């Protein structure tokens, strides 16, 4: 355990030092991340300004969902999302082999050595929109709702981690395919809007099979007191989803070491 923490700290230290070698570029990247994330709130705003709406949801409720998405990304991505790029790059260049000669868990080391602070841009944008939405909603949020939110938020991060594992696992076989990001971006978009806009079958798909709705919709719904009982099943699905994606990652790694990059 102490060994693991030591590795983590040294990984973070190295990642920060590397990143800070180009400070100007770092700040611009932070802004890019932020602007990219603001795209969906902007489209939502344009839709509502044109006099249209998602039936049953006001502008601020929808913005709240999108803010939760940004916060979940902003908090968790610095810790593990960089792994996708790291593995993409290392497998392509053949330097992933060097990870295999380190005496610690390969998954753990892949995660730790990919720490990337620049994703925190999403966090600031998310918090800003969250405050804006809450201020305009003028609803009292009970302590229970906040507790529910925090619990579901933890599962949101678990789902994001699972997707990261699936994406990076894929890259062991699909060498150098930077388009895995597009796949994730497309899939995660479904979490940015109220669940009710989807057909019943599709709602079930993103709640109980691939728990995309957990990324932002369910935690936000907890704050808005609009949760349904289905969320309990979704939590179980999240855990299964994580275990499966972890197994998938190891399977792809094994495949990589027996096929030889």
């Amino acid at each position, binding site marked *: 355990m102490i060994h693991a923490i030591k590795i983590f700290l040294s990984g973070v230290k190295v990642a920060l030092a590397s990143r800070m070698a180009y400070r100007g570029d770092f700040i611009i990247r932070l802004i*890019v991340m932020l602007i990219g994330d603001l795209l969906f709130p902007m489209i939502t705003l344009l839709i509502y300004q044109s006099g249209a709406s998602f039936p049953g949801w006001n502008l601020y409720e929808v913005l709240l969902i999108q803010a939760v998405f940004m916060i979940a990304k902003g908090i968790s991505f610095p810790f593990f999302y960089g792994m996708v790029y790291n593995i993409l790059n290392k497998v392509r260049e053949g330097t992933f082999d060097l990870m295999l000669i380190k005496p610690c868990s390969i998954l753990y080391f892949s995660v730790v050595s990919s720490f990337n602070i620049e994703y925190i841009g999403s966090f600031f944008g998310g918090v800003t929109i969250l405050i804006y939405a809450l201020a305009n909603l003028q609803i009292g949020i009970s302590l229970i709702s906040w507790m529910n939110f925090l619990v579901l938020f933890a599962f949101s991060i678990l789902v994001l981690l699972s997707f990261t594992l699936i994406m990076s696992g894929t890259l062991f076989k699909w060498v150098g395919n930077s388009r895995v990001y597009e796949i994730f971006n497309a899939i995660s978009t479904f979490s940015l809007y109220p669940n009710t806009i989807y057909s019943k079958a599709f709602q079930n798909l993103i709640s109980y099979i691939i728990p995309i709705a957990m990324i932002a919709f369910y935690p936000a719904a907890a704050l808005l007191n609009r949760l349904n009982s289905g969320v309990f099943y979704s939590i179980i699905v999240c855990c299964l989803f994580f275990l499966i994606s972890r197994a998938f990652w190891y399977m792809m790694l094994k495949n990589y070491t027996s096929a030889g990059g």
Partner: protein
Amino acid sequence: MLRTIKGVAFATYKEWAAYRSHMLVSLFVGPLYFLVQYYIWSSVYTGQDLINGFSLIQMLTYYGITTLINYCIMDFAGWNLQMLIRTGRFITFMLRPVSHRLFAFSQKIGHRMLGFCLELLPVYLVFTIAFDIHLIPANILWSILSIFLGFMMMFLVNYCIGITGFWLTRTDGIRSIILLFRNVFAGVFIPLTFFPELLQKILFFLPFQYISYVPVRVFIGDYQLGGMEFTIAQIVGIQAIYVIMMLLLSELMWRKGIKKFTGVGA
């Protein structure tokens, strides 16, 4: 010149065919984004027939065509160029008897040929069969012409962004901001008529709408932006003028950039 284009285009086609599985990602991503739009707009249109002059069917058609046209015209010319400059490999192009712009343009043709087979055709089938969205141009000749001009415009805009690499060496960040604005102002995410009136008027004079918004509207068969309406022939004419202006701008930037490049001595 035609032989150069053909040779380079085919070499690029073959090179990228090795990454065919990368392209097939579009087969998944394209319909998936469309599905999001489908749900969003189906929901938004309940209780409303027209939003900003679009009916639901027109709106879905808009997104469908935007997706397909994007497969015809997208490229990485700018990214490639700035990468060549930054790594210093650009120097090998100074030694070749063909201009880099023509070379990059030929590469794009080869790349998009493959995109046509692997992205456009299959996704078109998915739209037609799975979503029952029938994408038929209002006037096929004007559409082809406008898409071709969009193809040129996309290339020239990206290429100009790439040329900035002569001055901005380590700033992928700035370029990705420009690329994002390019997409937003080209109407990729939402029809430009959703923007405030004043912004629409400004956008009319920027090059971005000629990449995607204009070809899409020509495909649908009517054009309007910022309260202005044009016939198809008029707007394609304006598009052509803008392409020529952009070509001149890229030439100008290129000359300045080369001067800077050789001046520094790389």
